[in-house]
């Protein structure tokens, strides 16, 4: 399977979280046997050595004869219309004043003046930065999208964030191949209610024209549904690894309670050992007060567990959330300070890996597959409630210990995480291709 990817950042050119995420995704796909070609704006005269094929936009000869000026939005829209795309993009005239900063590259025959005629085979200049000319560069990058050599050889087109949506759209139009847009962040995340209308429009048209959307979280998926009016059935969620502070900041979310939160998340069944969690909580609460325990999930043992908690009279420190969905799961992880998986028997156990995505330290039972991979997690026998209580207290009282566990575990699973993401994305490709046939 061959995929053509459009990105804006890629190591060594990284300014935010997008670059590392794209890098991780390409590793994950590579390990799952997907042939990835990654397009970036420019190599900035540096050599990039990477096992995947890198194409630089400023080296791709353009197949069109004119650069649309972003001030001339009518013209650009009509051009896109000619390409058969119902266009919702309107770029406001104020951008023109910024275009003056575009400088012709002296060493190469690169044409950078908007509105100027091109000869076939001209190349465009890109800074690949987030400067004043960003919108013009994004439009120009779009032209490159339709001009990538041998477009027909790819099975799918995959575009990361709004910067690359024009490129993805034009590649889709030129090749007829399915387009996936990958939403790492939305204009809503970046600007709240005061969104930049141009950026929003580009995002929205990309999402509408795409055959599938990958969102990095359910939170993002909800935003796409709510603010961009996209059919939920078109959106898949594939997690990236992100940092907890950023996550909390992004969710514009605070912990709803002041105390430390210790989390159990999973089906409330025998196999998951919920009663060991409750019994340990009871022991912890005898020793420290500024902590709350949360049991998230549902299952046949839930009524018994609620009764057990009530019997212990710890209702002011122990909470049940019931079954959590999508965004609630993310929120729950994000506000937790410690994750406990006291499973009696667990073939694998995905939840500790999820907890690590939110920088939550983990305690897992020796009777789980996860314990084989997460050697730096705290590993205990599920029945050893006293020890579990001791360690909960120790971690809650020692933030450095907590941080060390997270760091060490994340290091262990760095690749595992991206491989899972890669496998998920490969599945999404496969489903699109199958449904096209």
């Amino acid at each position, binding site marked *: 399977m061959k995929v053509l990817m459009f990105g804006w950042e890629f190591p060594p050119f990284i300014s935010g979280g997008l670059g590392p995420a794209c890098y991780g995704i390409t590793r994950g796909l590579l390990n799952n046997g997907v042939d990835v070609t990654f397009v970036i704006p420019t190599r900035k005269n540096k050599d990039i050595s990477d096992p995947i094929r890198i194409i630089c936009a400023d080296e791709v000869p353009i197949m069109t004869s004119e650069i649309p000026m972003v001030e001339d939005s009518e013209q650009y829209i009509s051009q896109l219309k000619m390409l058969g795309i119902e266009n919702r993009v309107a770029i406001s005239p104020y951008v023109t004043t910024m275009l003056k900063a575009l400088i012709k590259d002296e060493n190469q025959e690169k044409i950078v003046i908007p509105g100027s005629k091109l000869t076939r085979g001209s190349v465009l200049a890109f800074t690949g930065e987030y400067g004043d000319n960003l919108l013009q560069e994004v439009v120009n990058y779009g032209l490159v999208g339709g001009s990538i050599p041998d477009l027909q050889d790819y099975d799918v087109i995959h575009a990361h964030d709004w910067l690359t949506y024009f490129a993805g759209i034009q590649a889709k139009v030129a090749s007829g191949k399915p387009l996936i847009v990958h939403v790492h962040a939305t204009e809503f995340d970046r600007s709240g209610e005061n969104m930049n209308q141009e950026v929003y429009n580009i995002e929205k048209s990309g999402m509408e024209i795409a055959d599938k959307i990958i969102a990095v979280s359910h939170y993002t998926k909800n935003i796409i549904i709510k603010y961009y009016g996209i059919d939920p059935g078109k959106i898949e969620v594939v997690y990236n690894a992100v940092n907890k502070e950023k996550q909390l900041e992004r969710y514009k979310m605070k*912990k*709803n*309670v*002041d105390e430390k939160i210790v989390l159990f998340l999973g089906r409330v069944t025998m196999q998951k050992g919920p009663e060991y969690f409750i019994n340990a909580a009871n022991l912890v609460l005898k020793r420290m007060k500024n902590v709350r325990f*949360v049991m998230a999930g549902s299952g046949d043992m*839930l*009524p018994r567990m*609620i*009764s*057990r*908690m*009530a*019997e212990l*009279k710890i*209702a*002011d420190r122990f*909470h*049940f*959330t*019931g079954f959590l969905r999508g965004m*609630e799961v993310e*929120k729950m992880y994000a506000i937790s300070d410690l994750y406990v998986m006291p499973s009696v028997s667990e073939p694998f156990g995905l939840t500790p890996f999820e907890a690590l995505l939110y920088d939550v330290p983990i305690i897992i039972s020796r009777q789980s597959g996860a314990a084989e991979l997460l050697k730096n997690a705290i590993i205990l026998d599920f029945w050893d409630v006293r020890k579990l209580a001791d360690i909960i207290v120790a971690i809650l009282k020692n933030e450095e210990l907590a941080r060390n566990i997270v760091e060490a575990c994340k290091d262990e699973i760095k690749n595992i995480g991206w491989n899972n993401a890669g496998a998920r994305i490969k599945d999404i490709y496969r489903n699109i291709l199958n449904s096209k046939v």
Partner: protein
Amino acid sequence: MVSVCLYFQVHQPFRLRKDYSFFDIGVNHFYEDEAVNREICNKVSQKCYLPANEVMFQLINKFEGKFKVAYSITGIALEQFEKYNPEVIDSFKRLASTGCVEFINETYYHSLSFIYSRAEFKRQVQMHRKKIIELFNQKPQTFRNTELIYNNELGKFIENMGFKTILTEGADHILSWRSPNFLYQPIDCYKLTVLLKNYKLSDDIAFRFSNRDWDEFPLTADKYASWLHNISGSGEIINLFMDYETFGEHQWLDTGIFAFLNALPGEILRHPDFQFINPSEARKFYTPVAQLDVPYYISWADVERDLTAWIGNPLQNSAIEMAYSLEKKILATRDPDLISIWRKLLVSDHFYYMCTKWFSDGDVHKYFNPFNSPYDAYLVYTNVLNDLKISAEKSRSQNK
């Protein structure tokens, strides 16, 4: 002379939002399911309170003072009527003005406070008393505790508060061979008299009236009156106590319950030795025949006639103990809103919803339970309580 004493309980609980979750704790302080509370008050007012009050008013006029009736209306119900159905308050005021209607004192919040905090109990009784005087211009003489919960200690406490009469359940296990159809005196009391509910005759109307499997179906006013008349010679006072919602809400209009109610006083008074009295009048006509010893709590609920509808299982105990444990903290805030919402959380129905016994009374419990399960009820309740506790702690630290 045999007296018939009719007393009806009027109560509407304070229902909580079913979706109040862990994530609301610390951020969302709005607990009430206002839409449902309003909707139910509107519905029951139309189906029961307004039409039943109209029937009672007509009967009082028709029998020129010979028909009497008593009500206990909880404070939390009165508050909701004032908010949603002021016409219900007006119609009770109209009944009060006839002089044939007695209003009975109870805890304002229909709470189990006697069991958990005597101080709070006293405050709630006084609040309710004040409300009755204010609305109906009547000083209550008679007391009934939430759900007719009663024991010797309560009797003594109520006597010391100055009441003359108290109502409770004529439970078999306290009466054994004795009849509920006499006046009794609580053990250790000198002034207080106790009226005991004749549960068989009360439940014939409240529970069995429309039951087609019942041997006596259909129940007519003359048949029922004849059962009462048969007591003549073997009893002095027949206490028919029931939920007022029996009329039109538990027994719907089309069961003929209103026609039955309309015809009943005439049928009863057909016997020259029968009269209607209000609870506080009983001691004028009769003297107690014996002392009543109730060492353990009784109530009018379920077949057990005990407290297990509200307390006893771990959920109920945990919830109610946590609620009362906040008393000092909440009162110390001196914040009227926090104190009022805390008291609304003491309404006994919250704990009734957490009842896990699904035996013979399961259907009744289910009928009244807005939650899908007692566990859901418990979780919402404790979430709310946790938020209230945090609010009280914050409020206190601000005051310092």
